[in-house]
């Protein structure tokens, strides 16, 4: 039994570490800024000098990919952590407290869900004038992503609120904050972790979509802009699989790694709890 859990967790952990390595350690060794065009001959196949070949813009695919992974990870992590934390706090508070606080917070949540993102994104794009730093892009993504975990947290809180252990805690005089943290959080944690991981993915994917509108900085290297430039140069139809494939595979593997880690962790903690 233990074997199986460990292998899942191990696999996930290995993948995530690989990405952390690729994203945060390897880029320091890149020979020059891989975003600069025409530093190497275009459209070369994979070789010892160019592990993943070169792009139609004259960049080394492998080094560009490492920079892209780093920036996408940064965006994804910042967005996911901030959005989930904000969402959890707001949602749990709303669900548990109820009453006016619930009403006001729900109003806030719903307004954000309901307000259309496209016009605001275009407005932001023109204000930022193509100099959006990675942090700014993450910030924009947080604004549009926090209501979802908040709403679901609230729903779970509403349902858990009535459970016996909560009533016990309430009647025994624990403060609402403590109840939220101590009693409710463990139940939500595995789901919340799942949501966090999903938000990382949503953040990375949305960043790619924004790259096309111009909110993300097309001069930056992210997995989204890498796909954007590859599509711009018809990499899919021209069968330049390394250029278009590597960011897609990277996104998939990144997600799988995070996912396995998360489920591996929850299984591990489940074993610990004796199931």
């Amino acid at each position, binding site marked *: 039994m233990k074997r199986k859990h460990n292998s899942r967790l191990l696999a996930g952990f290995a993948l995530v570490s690989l990405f952390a390595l690729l994203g945060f350690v390897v880029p320091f060794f890149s020979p020059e800024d891989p975003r*600069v*065009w*025409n530093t190497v001959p275009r459209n070369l196949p994979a070789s010892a000098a160019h592990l993943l070949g070169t792009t*139609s*813009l*004259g960049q080394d695919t492998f080094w560009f990919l490492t920079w892209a992974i780093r920036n996408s990870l940064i965006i994804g992590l910042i967005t996911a952590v901030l959005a989930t934390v904000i969402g959890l706090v707001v949602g749990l508070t709303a669900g548990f407290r109820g009453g006016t606080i619930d009403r006001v917070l729900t109003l806030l949540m719903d307004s954000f869900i309901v307000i259309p993102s496209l016009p605001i994104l*275009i407005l932001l*794009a*023109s204000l930022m*004038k*193509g*100099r959006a730093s990675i942090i700014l892009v993450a910030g924009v993504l947080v604004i549009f992503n926090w209501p979802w975990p908040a709403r679901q947290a609230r729903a779970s809180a509403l349902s858990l609120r009535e459970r016996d252990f909560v009533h016990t805690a309430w009647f025994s005089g624990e403060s609402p904050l403590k109840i939220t943290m101590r009693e409710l959080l463990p139940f939500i944690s595995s789901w919340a972790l799942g949501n966090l991981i999903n938000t990382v993915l949503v953040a990375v994917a949305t960043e790619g979509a924004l790259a*096309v*509108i*111009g909110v993300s*900085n*097309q*001069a930056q290297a992210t997995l989204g802009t890498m796909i954007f430039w590859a599509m*711009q*140069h*018809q*990499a*899919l*139809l*021209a069968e330049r699989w390394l250029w278009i494939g590597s960011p897609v595979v990277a996104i998939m593997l990144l997600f799988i790694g995070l996912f396995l880690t998360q489920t591996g962790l929850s299984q591990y903690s489940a074993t610990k709890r004796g199931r």
Partner: protein
Amino acid sequence: MKAKRFNQFLTALAVIMILSMLLSACTPATKTNPESDPTAPKQEQSTGKARMTEQGTPRNETLIVDALDGRITNPKQFNPYIPGTAYSEGFHQVCMANLYEIDGTKGDMIPIIAAKPAEALNADFTKWKITLRSGLAWSDGQEFSAEDVAWTLTMLSTNKDLPAYGFWNPLIKSAKATDKVTVEIEMNKPYPRIETLVGDQIFDSPFHVLAKHIWSKENPATFAAATPTCIGPYKLKDVDANGMWTLWEKRADWQKAAYGASMGEPKPKYILFKFYGPEEKRVLAGAAHDLDVFMDITPDSWDVLRKKNEYAKAWFDQFPYANMDDPCERGISFNTSKAPFDKLEVRWALALATDIQSVSMATFGGKMRFSPIQVPPLSGLQPLYHFALEDWLKNLQLADGYKPFDGEHSAKLVKSLAGEKGLPTDPKAQKELFGVGWWKHDPNQAAKLLQSVGFKKGSDGKWLTPDGKPWKITINAPANFEVQSGRLAFAVADSWKKFGIDATAQAMEGGPFWTAEGNGDFEAGSYWPGCGVQPDVYNQVQGWHKKYVVPTGQTAPGNRQRYKSDRISNLIDQLSPLKPTDPKIVPLVNELNKAFVEEMPWIPMFGTSKFVPTDTYYWTGFPNSKDPYFGPWWWWSNFPFILHKLQPTGKM
């Protein structure tokens, strides 16, 4: 128990999925598609049964044209004078027609609805007489006469609800039909270029004749005209309710239609303008012989298409493939009222800091023509302007005696493209193909120029402005249209970055892109303020007059670069009263060219290269480099120039 339940579930799922796929796949297809290896060119069909389009017309009698305007929001609107009417899905190409049309290759105005050139009735060009062809009829059978022209002109200048009223009212004093084929127009001020007013010079004319017998009964400011009355050789057969395609059918009385009367019978019985969506789908459609005429595609898409479809042809059979005679040229323009772009030295420095060879490779893989002057390097204009000035350019000196021109750029480009077949080896031919030359890539001279106006290089190698701040430039770039200018902006930003300027390109959608230019809310942008198609470039260059300059923040009617030059404005004023055929025009324009070079208000870089290929599987006879009877501007109103030259191949 568990296993059985589970298996049942899986089986049910599988059955549902297979069933639904079978259901859709088994519906009789409206066209028979041969199954084949996707990487090889499609095989000819030998089924014997004629392939039909989805619209129900025989494929080999239908010309399928790419839809430039995308999906039409309101497909039941054919009023040319209200916004939102789609022009390029056949409406202005095969249904409407102009009094005069430009012949792009020779630069002449050809009479289409008119029968001969306009005649001035007085010396100061305020009274004109236009003689129309006789025997023309509208698509509903009604006779076409000078009454229609006169009525339309009068309506345009008197109907206050039309957006264009503000333009026509001050221009037209009166228009009347003196007989069935003669119109006399009186203008409120001298107007020597009447033919470009009622005719087309680039893309289309602002004037479209309306059928008086239909339109006089409606309010032209609101009438949607769901079924257009056409003077051109085609009439509307069907339109997709969702705006994805428009089908036109040749008029039975095509001899009484514009173009048909003067050029002969257009060959395709049907013309279908269809929107396939993203470029990938257009390429796939072309590979499957579902698209005959393409609008703009990227060179990468062209590479894919020509490998997948051996019948696909571009302008040239080999490198550089693209047609380079589009009437606008590309480069980087500035808001010259903003520091530091108000300084001549800065603009020249940026030109010299640009490594134009690598910009050319990065933008379109070298498939572009260099242009150092503000007139586009069209085949018809290069002899008059670019080559005529070649010696002057070679001897041009900047303030310190430095000679910036490099006439060897085309030779260098050809050398770096050593792998491509069919490139010219003769230096003159190289210049004709790739341009007369451009400025030297000289970072040292650029540095000198910058330092002479107070710029300094920081310790990290990056440039600092005279007030000591790091020099940042943002270049506006079009996001999903005009790919050449979009990529150019990034390539130039890249080049300037290597020089030490913190330059970046910002891709913007159409609305914000143009508004920024109009308001002056930009510092640099890959806009294209240099156009021309005839030797008389007055219409295109007059926007540079200093009278149009308004402060940044206000929308500029012209001169969006906000460049005040007495020398240039003076020359424009001298051009204004001349007839288009006046021999004084070419030398005057060359004086303008010299002024633009010396003052460098914007940096022209390349002519526009258009990859607008055609599929010769069902239709042949398209214009190309070997038979350049027409420029491949499929989205212009003079599209019918090709229709009588096309031949069906007869393939099923």
